């Protein structure tokens, strides 16, 4: 270090760096991992030494740092110096065919799964993955209108989902209305609540808006918990009528779906029907949102996100514009909620906690605010990711049979999210596509697009 004329040996420097990193890791993990305190049968605390585990981790971190310093870092530097290559031809072809392919895949997905995994396996893949992800895609599309387009930060979005679910459950049980009548009705009721929330929060921006929407979400949940006479409180509502296939119920009766079509009875038919139902709803939401973006109301939402004062100087009624954003977003959440109630057959306030709002919001932020494809990919990654990490049994072979991978599910997941946000700070698809063009549609880079002030 004292000899400035001589360039430092990169390999020696890398080893030095890796050693230092390993040392820091050792110091950090020594109390956290090195010692384990377990209370024994007489309730005494016994400290055990976990040397192997500790040194394995320190070695992994040291080697990782060495790898980075010797291979990845020089590679990144070389890559940064190289002139930018023109977009390869396959990217253009990929961009052109990606959406039709993705929609085609979602349509054939249940049958692909049915053919490969059999009836028993397909139930898990269509229900846990297909339907679950599509519900969140739909919720993501709905919240994208409020957060991504209009730039209003809404932390209580799950409230509208709950309104939709309880509207369907209560009206279907009390009055016996069919799913197809209650679906639009639940959407209307949810958007009514959206407008109701919209009025008091119109003057608020940024953090203040976020806090009030958060409070609104909690109010709805607490009302659902405590208004026992109507909602049955924590016990929830069970036995919610299931949607039927044009009047044919999915049961084992003689007039059930399987019997009518001469098929052997399995629960998979209902699941596949529900899958196509939510797929249709999600595609409808996506289509309507894309249409709205090209209509004056959609442009006004985006203009509102960019500059509210300029909007008012152009004669745009910002109050109404914000209310329509809240109402549209809430309406789609209401649709999704009534579907959720119909699919589960049982709902309780436990399904509508703040964690749900946070999940939906992170789908929108992770996907890139305002981007439909980004939101869909983020929902697949987030929901599919949490489902996939349920089966991490292979980790037992690494960390021993006492290791319970499900406990680390959220840790792994959170770590993955941090990495994605470092790699793509403005979300997976952060560029904006203009709603109208004269000669060619050029995408707009994220640093010009506003994030809204609430």
């Amino acid at each position: 270090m004292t000899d400035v004329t001589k360039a430092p040996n990169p390999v020696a420097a890398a080893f030095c760096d890796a050693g230092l990193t390993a040392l820091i890791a050792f110091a950090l993990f020594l109390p956290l991992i090195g010692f384990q305190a377990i209370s024994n049968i007489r309730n005494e605390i016994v400290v055990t030494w976990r040397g192997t585990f500790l040194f394995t981790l320190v070695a992994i971190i040291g080697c990782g740092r060495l790898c980075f310093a010797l291979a990845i870092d020089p590679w990144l530097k070389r890559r940064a110096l190289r002139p930018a290559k023109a977009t390869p031809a396959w990217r253009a072809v990929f961009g052109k065919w990606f959406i039709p392919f993705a929609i085609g895949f979602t349509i054939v997905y249940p049958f692909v799964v049915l053919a490969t995994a059999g009836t028993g396996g397909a139930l898990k893949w269509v229900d846990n993955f297909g339907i679950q992800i599509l519900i969140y895609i739909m919720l993501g599309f709905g919240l994208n209108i409020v957060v991504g387009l209009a730039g209003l930060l809404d932390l209580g979005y799950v409230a509208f989902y709950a309104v939709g679910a309880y509207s369907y459950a209560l009206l279907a049980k009390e009055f016996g209305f069919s799913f197809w009548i209650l679906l639009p009705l639940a959407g209307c009721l949810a958007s009514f609540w959206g407008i109701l929330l919209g009025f008091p929060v119109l003057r608020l921006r940024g953090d203040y808006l976020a806090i009030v929407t958060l409070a609104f979400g909690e109010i709805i949940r607490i009302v659902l918990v405590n208004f026992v006479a109507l909602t049955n409180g924590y016990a929830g509502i069970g036995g919610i009528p299931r949607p039927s296939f044009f009047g044919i119920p999915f049961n084992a009766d003689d007039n059930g779906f399987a019997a009518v079509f001469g098929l052997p009875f399995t629960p998979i038919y209902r699941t596949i029907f529900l899958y196509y139902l939510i797929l249709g709803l999600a595609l409808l939401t996506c289509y309507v949102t894309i249409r709205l973006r090209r209509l004056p109301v959609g442009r006004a939402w985006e203009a509102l996100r960019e500059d509210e004062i300029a909007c008012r100087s152009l004669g745009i009624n910002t109050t109404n514009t914000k209310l329509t954003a809240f109402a549209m977003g809430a309406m789609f959440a209401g649709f999704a909620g009534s579907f959720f109630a119909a699919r589960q057959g049982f709902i309780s306030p436990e399904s509508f906690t703040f964690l749900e709002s946070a999940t939906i919001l992170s789908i929108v932020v992770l996907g890139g605010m305002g981007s439909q494809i980004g939101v869909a990919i983020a929902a697949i990654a987030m929901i599919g990711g949490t489902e996939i990490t349920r089966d991490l049994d292979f980790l037992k072979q690494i960390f021993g049979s006492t290791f319970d991978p499900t406990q680390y599910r959220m840790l792994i997941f959170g770590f993955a999210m941090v990495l994605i946000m470092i790699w793509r700070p403005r979300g997976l698809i952060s560029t904006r596509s203009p709603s109208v063009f004269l000669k060619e549609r050029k995408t707009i880079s994220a640093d010009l697009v506003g994030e809204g002030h609430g």
Partner: protein
Amino acid sequence: MRDPADILLRVEQLTMRFGGLVAVDHLSFEARKGEITALIGPNGAGKTTVFNCITGFYKPTEGRIGLRHGGMAAWDGLEALTDSGKRQAKHGDGALFLLERMPDYLVSQQARVARTFQNIRLFPGMTVLENLMVAQHNRLMLASGYTLLGVLGFPSYAAAERAAIEQARAWLDRVGLIGRADDPAGDLPYGAQRRLEIARAMCTEPVLLCLDEPAAGLNPRESAELNELLLSIRTDNHMSILLIEHDMSVVMEISDHIVVLDYGVKIADGSPEAVRNDEKVIAAYLGVPDAEVAKVEAEVGA
């Protein structure tokens, strides 16, 4: 051709107080149709406050701001409208608006007063064309049946949108930005952003265009181009313009009528020549000669 009595905007006894500070003090002036009226004065004279009162961004503490559409006869109903407590009244072929009673967006939507801002307020993440489409929001909203017909894809909206794009294209031609129509507005150089903001204001089809320091930050060549643009908007579009400006080369060259403010009070009002030679204006801008300091001090009681 222009009638000196053809009053479009009448500001009377306008006062705006912020707590103990009187930003504008009983200001009265008139802007005539088809003229460029300039509002000048040293920094902090209250010019932008007057603008914000006219365009509804501030509610004035006192005073009346009347604007007419159509013929001069509309002014006859001014007192009746004031007493009625309403914002606007139809009068024969025209209408009369009391701007101090209207919220900001209605000033643009119904009274048709468009404005630009001292620190440019474009939508930087939207393209140049989209900026001009947002300006035609209210017309397009009506054509899209308040979104309902638009979502269902009715042809009436498609036609209205084509017309809106045509109008935007015409304005982009006028301000020389047609080649950059599909670029984001935030990517434009400063002078082009100023011109785009004027084009955007014109796309709302106003009867009065209020420009807050349109030449700020422009170089002499851009400033000369701006003069040409404003004169052509006045002559070819028969637009009335109200202008705040510091750049005297712009003000003296294009204004038909100048109002000078100092500390919220009107100190001069008249043609450019008259204002240029007005002693009070010279004193406000340059200070008074040494010989007169004693006299001025005695006047203000120092």
